């Protein structure tokens, strides 16, 4: 016993020496290091920063898809070998057996934006240091983000709503929870659209910013949400709703930029009167420089059309270069001109000829020189419905050229046959070709084989 006591005594004295040394440093304070650069979002500002990141990296696939439409031509003289390596397979609709260097349409990036949207929606009650209105706006934008990302995905990777049986056609997986462990199956095109519409309508009940100032115009607002809804309903062939939302936006903010005057500004500029949502650049400088506008598009503009000189620069008699796009100042996801065209198209489809003509007039009056318009306006007035439909489609092609609309419009209208020639080789896309739907990237199927099988 005495021995044990002695040991204990010795040992305690040693321990005392030790603790004297270490007590100088308080453990908790020593371990309390605020990491530089890393964060778990908790404040409203931090949640906003999460969403801003997603806004920043929304893929520019509407621009990439433009190569598949009839807008661009590639040529030995002006398309660099690097651009050939990246885009030639896309331009020639070569979806299988691509070069390894071929650019890929996005997938994960969209779902990452969807993840963050879900994360914000799910955690809205835990956001600190923000007013209820700020939180509500953020949640509304998240619903819009989720809806818009699903909308872009379903239009890239599934048949157009109006070109299939939406209830049985394979859509894309719907991701409605911030849960990384789910393995999803694709939903039908109809289910995807139902979710998109529901997200966007829900967003409207949360959003409270009517319009953002120019430098924040990449964010969703009440106006841009309604404008996007007009496009979604148009793609669904729900003409009444499309017209209703287009009308509503035009009533509130229907301004158009006059392109028939000298020194007209590009209407896609982020700070232009027309721009409602400056989110996607669409025609990045990379895409813009890869090819030249097809002369078929350029020649389709009538003489006296102000858009010709605002959108294009004539290089030679047989070649033009594109002025639209090429930088973040031309970011534009939707602008007022589209709403006039959406309204006109919806009205035509509903048989409301006069309504259609009225919307078309309002737009074109700001596009054509006075003399040209005097000539063209009466022509439109007397068109039968079928001719008017063609005119509305043609004006949509010319107005929204190189803004990422053409491929999607072709998909939902006629899916015509197309042909390309490059160095004496001809590449064709048949009418109604299955390649009007872009196949899922191999890595997507590898990561989720559920997506490779047949859709039932």
């Amino acid at each position, binding site marked *: 016993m005495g021995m044990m006591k002695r040991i204990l005594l010795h040992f305690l004295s040693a321990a005392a020496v030790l603790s004297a040394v270490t007590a100088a440093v308080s453990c908790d304070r020593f371990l309390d290091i605020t990491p530089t650069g890393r964060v778990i979002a908790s404040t409203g500002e931090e949640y906003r920063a999460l969403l801003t990141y997603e806004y920043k990296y929304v893929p520019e696939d509407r621009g990439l898809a433009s190569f598949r439409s009839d807008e661009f031509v590639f040529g030995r003289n002006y398309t660099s070998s690097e651009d050939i390596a990246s885009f030639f397979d896309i331009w020639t609709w070569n979806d299988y057996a691509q070069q390894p260097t071929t650019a890929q349409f996005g997938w994960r990036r969209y779902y990452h934006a969807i993840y963050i949207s879900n994360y914000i929606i799910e955690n809205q009650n835990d956001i600190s240091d923000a007013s209820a209105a700020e939180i509500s706006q953020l949640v509304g934008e998240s619903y819009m983000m989720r809806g818009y990302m699903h909308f872009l995905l379903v239009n890239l990777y599934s048949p157009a709503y109006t070109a299939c049986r939406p209830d049985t056609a394979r859509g894309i997986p719907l991701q409605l929870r911030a849960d990384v462990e789910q393995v999803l199956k694709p939903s039908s095109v109809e289910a995807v659209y139902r979710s998109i519409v529901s997200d966007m309508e829900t967003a409207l009940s949360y959003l409270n910013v009517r319009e953002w100032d120019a430098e924040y115009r990449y964010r969703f607002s009440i106006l841009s949400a309604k404008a996007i809804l007009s496009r979604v309903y148009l793609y669904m062939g729900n003409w009444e709703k499309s017209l209703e939302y287009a009308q509503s936006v035009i009533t509130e903010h229907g301004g158009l930029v006059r392109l028939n005057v000298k020194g007209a500004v590009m209407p896609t500029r982020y700070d232009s009167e027309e721009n409602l949502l400056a989110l996607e650049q669409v025609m990045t400088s990379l895409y813009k420089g890869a090819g030249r506008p097809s002369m078929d598009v350029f020649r389709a503009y009538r003489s006296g059309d102000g858009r010709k000189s605002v959108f294009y620069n004539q290089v030679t008699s047989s070649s033009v270069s594109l002025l639209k796009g*090429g930088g*973040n100042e031309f970011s534009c996801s939707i602008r007022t001109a589209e709403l006039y065209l959406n309204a006109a198209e919806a009205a035509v489809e509903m048989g409301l000829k006069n309504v259609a003509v009225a919307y078309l007039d309002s737009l074109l009056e700001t596009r054509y020189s006075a003399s040209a318009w005097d000539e063209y306006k009466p022509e439109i007035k007397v068109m039968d419905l079928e001719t008017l439909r063609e005119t509305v489609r043609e004006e949509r092609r010319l107005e929204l050229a190189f803004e990422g609309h053409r491929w999607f419009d072709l998909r939902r209208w006629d899916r015509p046959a197309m042909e390309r020639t490059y160095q004496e080789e001809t590449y064709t896309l048949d009418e109604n070709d299955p390649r009007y739907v872009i196949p899922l990237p191999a890595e997507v199927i590898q990561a989720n084989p559920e997506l490779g099988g047949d859709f039932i």
Partner: protein
Amino acid sequence: MRSLTVSIALLLACAPVSAQIRHIEGVVSDEADVLTGAVVSSGGLNCVTDLDGRYGMDVADTTGTLSVSYMGYRTQTVRLKPGQERYDVRLQTDNRQLGEVVVTGYQKIDRRKLTAAVSTVEISDEKTGTVTNIDQALNGQVAGLSSVVSSGAPGAPVRIRIRGTASINGVQDPLWVLDGMPLEGSDIPAMEDLKDIDEIYQTSIAGISPSDIESVTVLKDAAATAIYGARAANGVIVITTKKGREGSNRVNFSTRLTYEPKTDIGRLNLLSSDEKVGLELDLLSSGYTFRKSKGAVSQILADLGETDAFIAGGWNALSDGARSAIDRLRSVNTDWNDILFRPVFNQEYNLSLSGGNSDAHYYTSFGYTSEQGTVKGVGNTRLNLNVKGDYRFGESLKVGVSVFASNRRQDSYSTDYNGFTNPVYYSRLANGYFEPYNADGSYNYDTNVQGKEDSELDFNIFEERANSRNRRDDRQLMAIADAELKIGHHIRATSQFGLQYDSYDLARYDGEDTYAMRKEKLFATYSYADGKRTFLPDGGRNRTTSSHSRQWTWKTMAEYENSFGGKHQLELMLGNELRHTESSSVYSVAYGYDRRTLTSQPVIFPTETSASSYPLYRETNLENAYVSWFANGSYTLLYRYTVGGSIRFDGSDMFGVARKYRYLPLYSVSGLWRIDRESFMKGLRWVDEAAMRASFGLQGNIDRNTSPYLIGTFNKVTILPGNVETVISTETAPNPSLRWEKTSNANVGFNLSVLDHAITLDVNWYYRRGTDLIAQQMLPLESGFSSSSVNWAGMENEGWEISVGSRNISRRDFTWTTNLNLGINHNRIKSETVAENSTYPSREGHPVGAIFAYRTAGLDDEGYPLFISPDGDAVNAEQLLKLKNGASTLTAAEQRNLYSYMGSSDPVASGGFINSFSWKNWQLGMTWTFNLGMKVRVQPSYSPTSYDRGMNTNRDILNRWTADNTGSSLPALMNSGKRMQEYIQYSEFNLYSMLDIWVRDCSYSRLTSLRLAYHLPEGLLSRLHMHSAAISLEARNLCVIATDYDGFLDPETMGNPFAQPVPKSFILGINVGF
């Protein structure tokens, strides 16, 4: 049992037995220090020295001698003189036995009380061969330790594994400890793809010169490593450096001069120019479409407009001009091996000064090493300085200070995105018919080797080499200060403060006239109103990274040691450790750079978007702190039975880790039974030593990169002009259910030494069971993330480690000793959660390195692979995988079932076999290392869908299936126009590399070292006033005995045909001491 105890007690008791007694006392020490626990025997009585090396005993007057013994030392007998009471004894080390104490980094443990599985390797040229870095020295020296060179480049780190793989995702490298200070920065990053192999990289170990190292102790089981906490889950390697010894000043000088012959790439079996031209002609006429405009033949025919004529009419349809141009190609045979590689001559010099007296010792050394790579332009130099002193102040305080400083420079080639500037890679892909220089001496550009269908960029490897540079300068400073204070006879307080400071500057320069720069400028092209051009200024690019990392560790321990009644011995230790690490790096890039004038030009970015793609400056900073408490103790009875235990708590500032995961106690319990001390062993005089030890412990690891929360990093972006905003990027998936990865570890060991240590045997059996192991799992991309860490598996490692040493012949002039170190490891995955989306099978019941492949059944009548279906039929890929648009329509589970298990990529047995002969003053050493019984998945020698005819390849392609060669086992080249489903599957998915024909057996043994040395005889030395002198000649990696590794340079690098080969070298060493 009782009588046994009593008799032992009597034996050990320091009590008088006769009436006339005298007292004797003294101190037992060795050259450097006092010895605790030495056994002092006199007149049938025994006594043990205390912490200060003191003993005292009363013996009978008639006793004539006193003998002192201590393991690892020669037993010394002292004649007792009448009237003298004090006898201080200095013991001499016995070289036949390893050290008396085992250095664990925290403590020095008396080998007689050691309960743990450890191995100690003395570092000297005789024992380990000539190495420039310490990590190379351990190959084959320690049973259960496997080492693989990461690359043949000079200064490349060695990948070391102790007792197999313990973790999948976490760090698998052992913890390195330098004189008690755990080192930071010793982990080797995974270098899987080609681009990473080009990165020049060294770990913090590289700064230490092996000639300053005395020994290395490898701690293997939980009993040894638990004290280190979570970082020691993969074992610990403790470096003990040399220190000064008492005596006159010593000067030691050594040099090693190394010759490395040029690498021979003949084994790669590449096509000759003639064969390549023949192949290109064949492909053209067969209509193989992939990159059809590539290759000199296609280019000649296209230029002459005869492509169609050739396809229609063959060789005979060609004009004379075309024929002679093509025939000229056949006659050009550029020897890429010869012009890209070189033989090299390397040098190393070391000078050390050491000495001391009873109160102070010093050791100073200076070393210089210069290693050149067999790849031209690649090299590595090191300057290192080591200053060390230890001082004694009175009886109770000892202080030591040591400083290690080194400066290293590595030169390598600059790397581009495709890896063509890597000469090893390029030498395999460049065509023999391509001449790098034009007749006028200007560069000829290779347009074939670019990995693209169509490229206009000029590439020439010699131009690239001349106009670019990749240089890394490393500086390292480590300082360790320790103090030891004795408080009374039984308590010792020690404190050690260690500082490690590493920094490096990496400068990567690409001149204007390089492919890398041309490519960079092409990517930075912008469509200005007046046309397309690059926005980067004329000139080159200089990228510099400067990195600093600093750590300090301060540990304080109190140790208590006492023996009671000569029977019981108790040791207790309690300690605390604080650790703080900080690292930062700055990256910057200058464009328009001119390396002669050191000037650069501003970049005028056309848009903010393009500016954000070219960040000119980046900075990182990471700071972490740790607090740990630990304790251990042991109780020894009669120097025969020892039980011990240790425990450690680690706390850290880990960010985003739930509080409950911050602390996990790690512990071990262990025991030792020294059988040779038992009385029943008394009769077996031929047994010198026999002992058994056992331990059990728990180790753990947490994945620091995964958090239950969504963790983001701040950044600044501009979305719309003029508006800079803060964003938080979150590219790491959160995982709320992630738990600690735990490994329980059991060890049973037996060691035996017989016939005056002529044969020694050390056998260890171990069992390690890991639960909740963490691995990266691919996530469905719809999650928004590509992968996440999950607790996915349980795994066990069971193995034997056998070390046998024998003195086969021991004559006056001749001795022959043999050492065999053998490690046998069986690894098995006990449970594995296969992700729902995985198409690769579960390894449950198989080793972690399990390789699965599709069983093939030869080729069909069009040369496409046939598979054995689950029903046993031979089917093609379309039928096997039910392809649609080239993708399988089978569920993931169905796809998993199509694979068959082929074997494991980890060796079943590995180790070393070492023979040493000495005859008079000559010594011959031979070390074989081996890895047996593994499988390797090799890279297919060509892709059937995307073989690029612009590049050279292995001769296998000549033996592919064609209509004229239907007997081949290698598939035909496929065209996208035919059998579309299979074509897409083979070109887009990895089916082809998963065929069983790409899995090979691999077993090999390498003669790592063959070394002949001559020591100058004593007589001559004393006439020359020298202490020692030796000259040696060593051949390293002289030969390999292996199973089939055709088409690859080394069996070690069969998986990657682009790795630098393991170099052969011849070394002349001279070592003199004064």
